């Protein structure tokens, strides 16, 4: 399905995740974040960069991976993206919701 985000028609799935990462840009991430009640800071964008980098390398995302990243710790991650950090941050980053249970 298509949804208008940041004045562009964007392909998303029924949960609201982008299905075509090529359509992503910062304005789209920003609008999704605003809808989720998150005010993006440099630190938030650092998380987005990290997630997108992992996505490009086709590496699976997990909470342990965040801990091992050396960039942010788990506590900070939950603080930045309350209400399910990987779920929310991947949506903002325009990548699929992680399938792992950990």
């Amino acid at each position, binding site marked *: 399905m298509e949804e208008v985000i940041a004045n562009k028609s964007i392909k998303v799935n029924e949960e609201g995740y982008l299905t075509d990462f090529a359509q992503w840009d910062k304005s789209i991430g920003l609008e999704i974040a605003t809808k989720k009640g998150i005010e993006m800071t440099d630190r938030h964008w650092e998380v987005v960069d990290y997630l997108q980098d992992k996505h490009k390398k086709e590496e699976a995302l997990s909470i*342990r991976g965040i801990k091992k990243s050396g960039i942010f710790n*788990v*506590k900070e991650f*939950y603080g930045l993206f*309350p209400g*399910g950090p*990987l779920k929310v941050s991947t949506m903002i980053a325009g990548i699929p919701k992680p399938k792992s249970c950990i």
Partner: protein
Amino acid sequence: MPTTVRKMLFILSKATIENVYAAFIMANGARMEGIESEIFFTFFGLEAIQKKKLEHLHVATVGNPAMHMPTLLGGLPGMEALATRMMKKEMEKLDMPPIGEFLEILSDSGVKLWGCKLAVDMFHLKKEDLIDDLDGIITVGDFYNRADTDGTQMLFV
């Protein structure tokens, strides 16, 4: 449809690896979905939060039909250690953290970790014997009070 579950409370009463990981993965999974979660460690479940014991938990090879192993064989010396080693290897492949690291992740994720007062007294444990991340030693009544909100589920593991 978003879930109506708001809070998951787990009671962990056993310290075999399969039970501990089941509780930990469920508790962590709840937080990942934005659901509050807490674990109450009681009876043998307390081994999972004892500094000296938590890295030495085993798989149950006796009385565990899913091991597909004759009970007599499962009882042989070294059998539990072997099964445990094999399982840990498989878990590492899936990026499942060891118990100590998992407890850190749970605590950092905002999972509340409680020791059961009665069981702590029964096993003559002191606060120092338990992990530093423990949120406290509480009674059953205290734990029930924490369930006093809409959308709370309690699970015995």
